[in-house]
């Protein structure tokens, strides 16, 4: 008799059923879709989706269905011409409300989507799109920090009437970047050190004597350098994310890669010049006082602002404000903006450099209890076609991101309070994106056309089908009934692998598909090892059922052993690889696990079910 524990049957059945469920969304295909995201970043609600649907119907644009996915409205179409017609219509009608993006929506049925099940996302090589790798100039970030210290040092020494030969930032790019203050012989070194206590706070300060006088050196610690670099990268990521969102790309990825790189993936985007114009924008901030005497609405109506004031209509509340022309501080003087808490709830902690702090101090002394505003200014280059010629012009967007009342006298370190948690985070992000940017430049750029992506999918899927069919037929001929069992097991393996990949949301690339195909080829190995063992046992004259049992037991060590080496290669690739290569490594590694499970447990369960109960079993069809 051949037996297999009941819990093992249950486990195999449960795993395979779950796998089938998770893999299911991948088999429905995709429809062309239009994604609508609100320009003000608020989620799209059901009312809005009805408005858009009614509008499309009225315009005679056919659409299949629309649904809201993570705050964005997705409208599906039967074909691309409908999709394009809808985009043009929506852009014309809702230009101020929505950013549109052409996209693909999975045809997953409602009940699966409701369960949170989605198909594997496709990599750029399969979808088409633009990949950019940016290098962040972290040395420039360190240099900016040192310049800030140098500037504060100069001011402090001037204020204390200490003569100075030179103050400079030295050693950027080395492991000891520092601020060096050179004093003439006449200067009082102790007084100078005292004066520098505050401006060089946090640096490790040392004094040495020179032939012509003495020098005070403040060295940035390793932790400070790292903090500076992280800040620079975070700031750039924030800025890039904000701008990528404006591009209206569906499922964009902006992430840090390694120490000083940012990788941006924009599915479906083709025109890299336009994208880089938008991503490469320069932004800054301005702090200004608010005009409390004149009526801003009146100014908006007449289009004329009072003398010495400027009208801003793009504000958090939507109401226009008038701001004084004098600028208190700018983004160049902002050194950090982070979220924090205050007694009044969430807040943004703002730090300015010495110059900004001085100016802020002067202003706040005279203006306690008056409102102050922060303006984010972005300059970008807009290219349009006029009479067949491309014309570029610089456009400036100005947006008031915060209006708050000055509650006391402060200088370079203050809080903006009275915000909701989300608002505080948003404001800190916006402020940071307007602070002095650390330069970034593209070092790698890959663009894949959408038709090539489609072609790649077709090729990959073709190779998968043909390869699997060849293996299935071969196994069936070679091992007869047992071959068919192996085929079922292989199919279960692919389903299980697909389910795992869908659960992990690992994006599928062409090398990933190659990995799946390879897994099919390799998974056969475990079955072959088992079947060859069974054949050997049968040849020895062992009874069929005992041969099956012995086959599984004796083949186990060889199967486990031979998979370890592939596992090693897979894990190393996972660690060292990036992008599509990592996708291949993930598939390879998971494929080993799934093929071990399906061929050891799945096929044993199936064979036991088929042969276990039979009392008279003369021979096996193997």
């Amino acid at each position, binding site marked *: 008799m051949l037996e297999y524990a009941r819990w093992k049957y249950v486990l195999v059945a449960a795993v395979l059923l779950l796998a089938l469920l998770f893999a299911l969304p991948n088999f429905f295909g995709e429809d062309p879709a239009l994604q609508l995201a609100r320009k003000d970043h608020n989620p799209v609600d059901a009312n809005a989706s009805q408005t858009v649907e009614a509008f499309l119907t009225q315009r005679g644009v056919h659409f299949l269905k629309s649904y809201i996915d993570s705050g964005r409205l997705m409208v599906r179409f039967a074909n691309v011409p409908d999709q394009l017609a809808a985009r043009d219509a929506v852009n014309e009608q809702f230009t101020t409300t929505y950013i549109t993006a052409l996209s693909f929506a999975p045809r997953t049925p409602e009940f699966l989507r409701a369960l949170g099940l989605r198909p594997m996302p496709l990599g750029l090589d399969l979808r088409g799109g633009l990949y950019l*790798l940016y*290098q962040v100039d972290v040395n420039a970030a360190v240099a900016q920090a040192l310049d800030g210290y140098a500037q504060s040092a100069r001011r402090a020494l001037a204020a204390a009437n200490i003569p100075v030969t030179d103050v400079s930032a030295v050693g950027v790019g080395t492991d000891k970047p520092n601020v060096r203050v050179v004093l003439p012989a006449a200067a009082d070194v102790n007084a100078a050190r005292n004066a520098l206590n505050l401006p060089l706070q946090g640096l490790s300060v040392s004094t040495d004597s020179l032939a012509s006088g003495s020098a005070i050196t403040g060295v940035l610690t390793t932790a400070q350098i790292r903090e500076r670099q992280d800040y620079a990268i975070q700031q750039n990521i924030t800025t890039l994310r904000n701008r990528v969102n404006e591009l209206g790309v569906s499922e964009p990825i902006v992430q840090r890669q390694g120490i000083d790189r940012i990788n941006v993936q924009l599915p479906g985007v083709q025109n890299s*010049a336009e994208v*880089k114009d938008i991503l490469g924008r320069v932004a800054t901030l301005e702090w200004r006082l608010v005009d409390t005497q004149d009526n801003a609405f009146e100014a908006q109506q007449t289009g004329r602002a009072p003398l010495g004031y400027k009208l801003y209509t793009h504000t958090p509340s939507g109401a226009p404000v008038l701001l004084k022309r004098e600028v208190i501080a700018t983004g160049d003087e902002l050194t950090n903006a982070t979220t924090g808490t205050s007694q009044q709830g969430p807040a943004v902690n703002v730090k300015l450099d010495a110059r900004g702090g001085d100016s802020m101090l002067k202003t706040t002394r005279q203006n306690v209890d008056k409102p102050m505003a922060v303006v984010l200014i972005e300059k970008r280059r807009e290219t349009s076609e006029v009479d067949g010629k491309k014309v570029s012009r610089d456009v400036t967007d100005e947006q008031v991101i915060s209006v708050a009342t000055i509650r006391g006298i402060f200088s370079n370190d203050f809080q903006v309070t009275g915000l909701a948690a989300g608002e505080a985070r948003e404001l800190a992000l916006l402020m940071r994106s307007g602070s002095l940017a650390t330069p970034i*430049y*593209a*070092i*790698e*750029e*890959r*663009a*894949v*056309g959408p*038709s*090539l992506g489609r072609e*790649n999918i077709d*090729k*990959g899927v*073709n*190779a998968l089908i*043909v*390869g*699997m069919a*060849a*293996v299935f037929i*071969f196994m069936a*001929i*070679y091992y*007869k009934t047992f071959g068919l069992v192996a085929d079922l097991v292989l199919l279960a393996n692919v389903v299980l692998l697909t389910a795992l990949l869908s659960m992990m949301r690992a994006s599928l690339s*062409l*090398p990933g598909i*190659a990995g799946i*195909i*390879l897994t*099919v*080829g*390799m998974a*056969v*190995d475990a079955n*072959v*090892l088992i079947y*060859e063992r069974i*054949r050997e046992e049968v040849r020895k004259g062992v009874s069929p059922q005992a041969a099956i049992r012995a086959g599984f037991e004796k083949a186990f*060590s*060889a199967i486990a*052993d*031979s998979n370890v*080496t*592939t*596992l*090693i*290669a*897979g894990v190393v690739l996972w*660690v*060292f*690889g990036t992008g*599509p*290569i990592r996708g*291949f490594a993930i598939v*390879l590694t998971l494929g080993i696990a799934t093929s071990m499970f399906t061929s050891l447990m799945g096929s044993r369960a199936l064979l036991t079910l088929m042969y276990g109960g039979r009392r008279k079993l003369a021979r096996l069809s193997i």
Partner: protein
Amino acid sequence: MEFFSHQTSYPFMATRKVWYTLSAVLMVVSLASFFTRGLNLGIDFTGGVSAEVSFPRAVNADDVRTKLPASGFADPQVQTFGSARDISIRLPPDAKQTATEIRARVETAVKGVDPGATVAQLAVVGPQVGNELKVSAAWALFFTLLLIFGYIAFRFHTWRLSAGAIFAVLHDPILVLGFFSLTQMSFDLAVVAAILAVIGYSLNDTVVVFDRIRERFESNRRSPSDVILDQSINQTLSRTIMTKVVTSLVVVALLLLGGAVLKGFSAALLIGIIAGTYSSIYISSAIALDFGLTAEHVFPSVKKAALDHLP
């Protein structure tokens, strides 16, 4: 169906000089080519620009080649791939230009040949990225070999078997490198991934054969080593061939249908699988034999209990 209806008994050990010679020749040729001709490294490693351009109708690569210098590209490599309508262009790295500028100029140049031309794919890799990828590929190779050596040392209790396995692990990727050097096929990141997979697979067969050698020694301590080794290889031969035929089936499907992107990848796998099958059948066990492998090495402490199991 069976490839070998009866248990085979090929004399692998007796003929091993022949197989050593064949392997030696292939390895020497591979290494000589690798060190003299080198590899045709793809832009993943060299940095530079690679563009794939689709034309609406068949196009002469020479037309494209003559247009490019006018756009300021000094040393373009232009060739058709796939069909006569698809052209691939490779340009050396140029630190002074941004990707956007390069793209615009490539577009201008190809549209000069045919206004309907479109850039289907463009990759611009900065020279520093290329260098880093070279370094990280080398590290990946190094760590894979190191871990596999560690595994071998742990797995086979005698260095005689380990030596055979290590030889196989080095043999197969060297032949793959030799193939890429001789054919000057583009060697990119995907090929490195394939080589790492080959290193993993290559040991797979050897491990199965060695597993059997241990089992045979256990049940048959008095037979001479060469007999045991021949028996072990012959008994696993059906499985070795079968697995590799099936794996090759899918790899050939990839090679023929997977398109240009996967060509190098699948070629590397195919060569690696063939080399791996060869080395695990003909070479790795033979090396262990020449290092004097006996039952005593595999089971150092003979216990009476073990002998009782003898048939």
